[in-house]
């Protein structure tokens, strides 16, 4: 039809003085935005196709390109904002559910940015991380609350299985299918190098990556993709995915176009058919059922691997967590509503779930109140964006942090939020071989290692500033935090005082 | 160990460089009859064209002989080899001992019998630097130059002097130019180019006799001239080896180690006759790259290492007023022809191998890729021959082969 409701969101601005017509923008745009006009010997751009992924901008050798948000807009309206209007146009066009990728961009409060960290002065000296040892190593798993001795009176030191982390950060679940082979390889190599873990997500484990098993957490999700005995025993821990922060209450979705031979083999599903995971695990309808699955997995792996249960942060998360802590699980992973996704219905992603900061604080408080905090370790994720967020999360009670969006950014992602199209220009959220090639795992893993190493240094700096020299002493140490611009209720849930108090 | 080299051109330098890689202490003596530092003969036409200078056209820099500890004896001619005493007798009366000897005497111009040739005052050959300098002395803007021979030397001479003279006429008995290296289509393209650059070509004809400043041709045509250049052909300088009892055919016969039939005597360059690796027949391959590599091989064998050069083949890279021609191998078997605006490409395939090619014009790009197919006798079934015949690409080789060519340690 000859009528355009949707004006292109972005404009490609090319500085004609600087452009040397090298055509790298044309060669590297999978959305075919740029092309070369031989007649005029100039590059031309089709703004309608631009998704603002910055591939062309990043490669242009003379910095001739920039992508600008269009200033074409609707009349100012605090209620009917432009993107809300456009969503209606889209649905009137397609009649379909709006799909979206990555974490919600909506303007909800970011509690990380409303908490401040302490520093030592005068009464309690700070520690210089360059001169004194700082311990960022941590162990995830059930911690026994009693000291036990054998018949000879010797201490029994055997513990439940633990995950040893050099740094309290792990790479969160991203399935092979939503992201590429090379992205997985980068994560696996980096996890190995750093002495931390990465997560297979619900796509199964590719046979080439079994060699990194010691640094792998294998996930068992509702679709049970790729789950078989060797898979369970290949990893260092098993994670039961009950929910995901970006889309609580529903299952995963991988469009059929992204399912080629390799994905089909790894997930054990037919090629080119949409892979939609069911909302619940169809064998878990109660907390007792969860306990049963936890122990089934422990049996299958001879009790050698910790079991993680991953849930989305929702309204009664503390009650849920309490139930999980009594189910025999070793670790609870909580995923906040800001978490990313390869593809999810936009409305669910933008309106369902609660912030991880509040969920974490309330879960940690509740478990301590019930005296079962030591039953489990807490791992949190859902938009941890910097080492400061990590410090705040640990101070609120987390044992370790899951990051995913931050990891993808390190690999080159520019948060254009078009993963669901499968044409990721950075080789991350795509299965097209000519695009996957763009992510060289040697480069990708090095960038991930750099990121985590940098965060680790910053964590030590901030810890030293607080006068703390080990992560254990920071964990749950709410006194190290103060709120700023938070109301009474928020301060109470977070369990922190206001700055100045 | 005394190494002695007769000849001070390309093969000689190749020999010196490879001896010195192995043996830094043995003495090397070079005896050359030209009183110049080693220069490359093909450059004399470029000298006249002002594309190079006498200094720049030396093959190696001034310090070369000193750095390589070479005793130079220039302006001297070797008269005989005594293989029993292992001595050379020089025209100044001295004797030079040798343990290993390389004969790199090159060739000399062939002067065909022509009636009254001796009466032509300004007659020149076009082989050596001195030839070029002598020719230059007599050329003026009014000169009418007659060149006998439309082969490589004759035409390069024409190109070199074109801007210095009034007219140039080239005469050859053959029906077309460059008959030794090109096919009809190629000769025709080159001839057209020469004519467009003001050079008159008279083919299928020859000089019957010279009368004053006129050349009477067999066809009856008369060509007036002021300067005569004879570029009919060359004769390999074989006398030293022949008189010493060595086997000689059209040139000095050598095996793959570049040794002659005489013990401890080697030969290399235009004076030698080796095996053409494509035809497996004896052939004089008077091409500069072959000369260097033969000299190099001889040097290694002389210094005690085992070396052989079994990849000698015909090849030529030559250009006339911007029209470039590159040819290699033999023109047999079935051929693939690609015509372009400026020229063409012709590839010759026999027994599943590329045995030769002719490239003229813009098709000369990356010609070396084709040369390597011919030289290595690559089985064309192992590569994408359709692809590579359209465009010389390493892509045509299999993935493993590419990784080996481009990725392996040298």
């Amino acid at each position, binding site marked *: 039809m000859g009528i355009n409701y949707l004006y292109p969101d972005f404009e490609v601005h090319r500085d004609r003085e600087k452009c040397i017509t090298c055509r790298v923008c044309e*060669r590297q745009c999978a959305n075919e935005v740029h092309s070369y006009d031989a007649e005029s010997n100039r590059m031309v751009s089709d703004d309608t196709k631009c998704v603002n992924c910055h591939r062309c901008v990043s490669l242009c*050798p003379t910095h001739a390109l920039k992508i600008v948000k269009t200033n074409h807009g609707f009349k100012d309206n605090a209620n009917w904002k432009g993107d809300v209007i456009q969503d209606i146009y889209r649905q009137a066009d397609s009649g379909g559910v709006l799909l979206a990728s990555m974490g919600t961009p909506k303007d909800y409060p970011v509690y990380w940015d409303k908490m401040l960290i302490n520093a030592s002065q005068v009464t309690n000296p700070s520690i210089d991380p360059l001169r004194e040892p700082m311990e960022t190593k941590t162990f995830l798993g059930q911690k026994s609350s009693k000291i036990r001795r054998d018949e000879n009176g010797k201490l029994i030191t055997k513990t439940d299985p633990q995950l040893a982390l050099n740094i309290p950060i792990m790479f969160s679940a991203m399935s092979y299918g939503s992201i590429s082979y090379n992205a997985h390889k980068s994560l696996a190599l980096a996890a190995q190098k750093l002495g931390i873990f990465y997560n297979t997500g619900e796509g199964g484990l590719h046979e080439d990556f079994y060699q990194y098993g010691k640094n792998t957490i294998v996930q068992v999700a509702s679709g049970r993709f790729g789950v078989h005995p060797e898979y369970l025993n290949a990893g260092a821990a098993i994670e039961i995915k009950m929910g995901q922060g970006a889309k609580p209450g529903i299952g995963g979705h991988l469009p059929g176009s992204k399912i080629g031979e390799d994905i089909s083999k790894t997930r054990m599903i037919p090629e080119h058919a949409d892979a939609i995971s069911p909302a619940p695990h169809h064998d878990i309808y109660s907390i007792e059922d969860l306990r049963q699955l936890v122990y089934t997995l422990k049996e299958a792996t001879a009790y050698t691997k910790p079991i993680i249960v991953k849930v989305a942060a929702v309204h009664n998360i503390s009650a849920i967590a309490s139930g999980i802590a009594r189910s025999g699980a070793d670790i609870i992973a909580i995923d906040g509503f800001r978490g990313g996704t390869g593809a999810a219905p936009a409305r669910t992603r933008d309106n369902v779930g609660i912030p991880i900061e509040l969920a974490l604080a309330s879960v940690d408080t509740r478990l301590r109140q019930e005296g079962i905090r030591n039953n489990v370790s807490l791992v949190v994720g859902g938009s941890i964006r910097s080492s400061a967020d990590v410090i705040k999360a640990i101070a609120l009670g987390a044992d370790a942090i899951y990051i995913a969006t931050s990891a993808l950014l390190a690999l080159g992602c520019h948060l254009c939020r078009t993963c669901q199209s499968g044409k990721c220009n950075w080789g991350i959220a795509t299965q097209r071989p000519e695009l996957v090639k763009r992510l060289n795992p040697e480069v990708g893993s090095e960038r991930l290692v750099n990121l985590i190493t940098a965060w680790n240094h910053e964590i030590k700096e901030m810890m030293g500033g607080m006068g703390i020299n080990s992560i254990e002493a920071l964990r749950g140490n709410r006194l190290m935090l103060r709120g700023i611009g938070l109301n009474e209720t928020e301060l109470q849930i977070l369990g922190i005082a206001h700055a100045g108090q | 160990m005394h190494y002695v080299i007769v000849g001070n051109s390309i093969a000689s330098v190749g020999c010196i460089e490879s001896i010195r890689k192995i043996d830094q202490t043995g003495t090397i003596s070079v005896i050359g009859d030209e009183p110049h530092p080693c220069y490359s003969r093909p450059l004399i036409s470029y000298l006249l064209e002002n594309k190079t200078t006498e200094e720049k056209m030396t093959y190696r820099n001034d310090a070369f002989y000193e750095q390589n500890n070479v005793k130079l004896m220039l302006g001297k001619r070797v008269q005989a080899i005594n293989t029993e005493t292992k001595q050379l007798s020089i025209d100044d009366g001295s004797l030079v001992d040798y343990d290993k000897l390389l004969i790199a005497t090159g060739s000399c111009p062939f002067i065909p019998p022509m009636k009254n040739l001796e009466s032509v005052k300004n007659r020149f050959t076009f082989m050596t630097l001195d030839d070029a300098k002598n020719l230059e002395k007599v050329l003026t803007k009014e000169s009418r130059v007659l060149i006998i021979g439309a082969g490589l030397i004759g035409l390069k001479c024409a190109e070199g002097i074109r801007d210095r003279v009034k007219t140039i006429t080239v005469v050859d008995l053959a029906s077309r130019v460059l008959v030794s290296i090109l096919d009809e289509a190629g000769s025709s393209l080159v001839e057209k180019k020469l004519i467009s650059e003001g050079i008159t070509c008279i083919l299928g004809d020859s000089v019957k006799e010279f009368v004053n400043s006129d050349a009477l041709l067999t066809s009856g045509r008369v060509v007036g001239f002021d300067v005569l250049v004879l570029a009919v052909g060359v004769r390999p300088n074989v006398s030293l080896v022949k008189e010493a009892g060595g086997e000689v055919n059209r040139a000095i016969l050598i095996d793959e180690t570049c040794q002659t039939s005489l013990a401890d005597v080697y030969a290399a360059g235009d004076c030698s006759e080796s095996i053409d690796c494509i035809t497996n027949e004896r052939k004089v391959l008077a091409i500069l790259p072959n000369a260097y590599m033969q000299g190099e091989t001889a040097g290694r064998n002389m210094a005690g290492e085992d070396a052989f050069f079994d990849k000698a083949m015909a090849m030529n890279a030559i250009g006339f007023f911007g029209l470039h021609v590159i040819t290699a191998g033999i023109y047999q078997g079935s051929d693939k022809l690609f015509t372009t605006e400026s020229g063409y490409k012709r590839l010759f395939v026999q027994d599943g191998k590329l045995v030769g090619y002719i490239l003229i014009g813009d098709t000369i790009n990356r010609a070396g890729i084709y040369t390597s197919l011919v030289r290595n006798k690559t089985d064309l079934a192992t590569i994408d021959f359709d692809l590579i015949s359209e465009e010389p690409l390493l892509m045509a080789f299999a993935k493993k082969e590419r990784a080996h060519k481009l990725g392996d340690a*040298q």
Partner: protein
Amino acid sequence: MKRVYVNEQWCLGCHLCEYYCAYANSGQESMVKALKDRTINPRIKVEEKNGISFAVNCRHCNEPLCVKSCIAGALSQVDGLIVIDASKCVGCYSCIMACPYGALMPNEEGVMQKCELCTTNTHGKPACVQGCPNKAIVFEER
């Protein structure tokens, strides 16, 4: 000796190596000034077909056929690196005939040019290696 190696597994066929090469050898400080409105003639060239791509430049062979074929002695090997003395080159194309990698080509002045590992321009380190966005081109010893 370190050489430039191209790993075809990571080459994206983006051609940036060619542009950085042309810029490095242009003698200009500004890439825009060096390359705007010019057809480039780089010393490293990308071959691409059917989804495979890789760039080819001089291998600096241990047994350099180009050096042995040069009629002017313009090509020489110095500590493994093969360089051209452009003032000696007469543009006969013998080296083009000889090089099995097709790594030599005429420049704008009609004399030969080839990769010299950026040792003869102001860049010092090979520009193609620095410009490759996917670490497909490396500079190492093998």
